[in-house]
């Protein structure tokens, strides 16, 4: 509250007494010529930054300078709300989502529509020219009234906004509460990820339950380590000497003998021996063909 009063005092000090007409003092002029270019620089930086995080930080600069411009413009409440809500909450939300999505997701350079960027730039310059020209034309003879009298009457800027909000705009204010609740519920519905949907990972508990409901809760027997070889292809033997069918690897059993001929030759030493070319991979790749 004291900060708000300070800002109001600053605003009043920057605006020397002019009860009827709104005069702009030197302080406000200097503030405008510092903050205006700063906010434009922020907007341009956001537009041209390749990295999305840099864009967000440039936008923070723009929003901060806009907040100070509000305070200079006799709207201290909106200035502080701008800094707290926009730069404090909304931009941090943007940064959170950027970090979740991944910082590397920069813009693609590929132009999908031919000449789209040029057309957008021309459109933007044309739009800016039209709006700036018409505004400058329309407002040359408009005399500004100024908020000094309003802000100095009653309880100041904040109290006056509050009384407007809860009398004249009460219904709209109630509607915004409905909007905020809808937004919160909508965000929860959209962000909820259904683990049981198709293609989702099963939980540990579901995996265990599935396994115990099946016909074999334990693990499959390993290959026959008591046989003459320790190859995976060697079947395990049951106590009566017969082959345990479950120890046979399905992958190896279905592989034809011809496809394994090269591997057999390599192990038994009858094929090509590994030499320096094996490291480059070119020779073995040709043999594998």
């Amino acid at each position, binding site marked *: 509250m004291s900060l708000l009063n300070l800002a109001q005092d600053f605003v009043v000090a920057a605006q020397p007494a002019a009860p009827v007409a*709104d005069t*702009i003092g030197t302080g406000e*002029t200097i503030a*405008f010529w510092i903050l*205006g270019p700063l906010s*434009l620089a922020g*907007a*341009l930086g*956001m*537009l041209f930054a390749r990295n999305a995080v840099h864009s967000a930080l440039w*936008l923070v600069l723009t*929003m901060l300078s*806009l907040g100070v*411009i*509000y305070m200079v*413009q006799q*709207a201290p*409440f*909106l200035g502080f709300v*701008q800094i707290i*809500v*926009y730069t404090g*909450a909304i931009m941090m*939300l*943007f940064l959170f*989502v950027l970090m*979740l*999505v991944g910082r590397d*997701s920069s*813009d*693609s350079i590929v132009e999908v529509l031919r000449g789209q*960027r040029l057309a*957008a*730039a021309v*459109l*933007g310059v044309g*739009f*800016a020219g039209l*709006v700036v020209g018409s*505004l*400058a034309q329309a*407002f*040359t003879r*408009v005399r500004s*009234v*100024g*908020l000094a009298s*309003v802000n100095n009457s009653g309880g100041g*800027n904040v109290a006056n*906004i509050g009384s*407007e909000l809860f009398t004249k*705009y009460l219904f*709209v204010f109630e509607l915004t509460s409905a909007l*905020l609740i809808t*937004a*919160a519920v909508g*965000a929860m519905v*959209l*962000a909820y*990820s259904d683990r049981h949907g198709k293609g989702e990972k099963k939980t540990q508990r579901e995996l265990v339950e599935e396994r115990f409901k099946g016909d074999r809760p334990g693990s499959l027997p390993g290959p026959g380590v008591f046989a003459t070889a320790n190859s995976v292809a060697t079947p395990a033997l049951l106590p009566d000497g017969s082959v345990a069918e479950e120890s046979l690897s399905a992958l190896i059993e279905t592989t034809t003998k011809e496809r394994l001929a090269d591997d057999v030759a390599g192990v038994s030493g009858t094929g090509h021996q590994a030499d320096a070319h094996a490291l480059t991979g070119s020779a073995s790749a040709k043999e594998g063909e």
Partner: protein
Amino acid sequence: MTPTYYLLLSALLFSLGAVGVLVRRNAIVVFMCVELMLNAVNLTLVTFSRMHGELDGQVMGFFVMVVAAAEVVVGLTIIMSIFRTRRSASVDDSNLLKY
């Protein structure tokens, strides 16, 4: 200097935001450009409030901020859910709006 200068500044900011929406591909950056346009409109509301000598413009600016906050929450969630299914935040890739 007159308060019209603030209006000109906000016109420039608004058109920069519009160009950004047209040019940028990353959905989150497009969203930030929309935020910039909302901010530019807020600046005009504050300036008009000052020129009229009434507080209604500031109250409207306050409502714009509330709506912007709600919009950001829902929009970013939509971008997140699209990213979760398509593994991309580029507006070029989300051409199906389905699954």
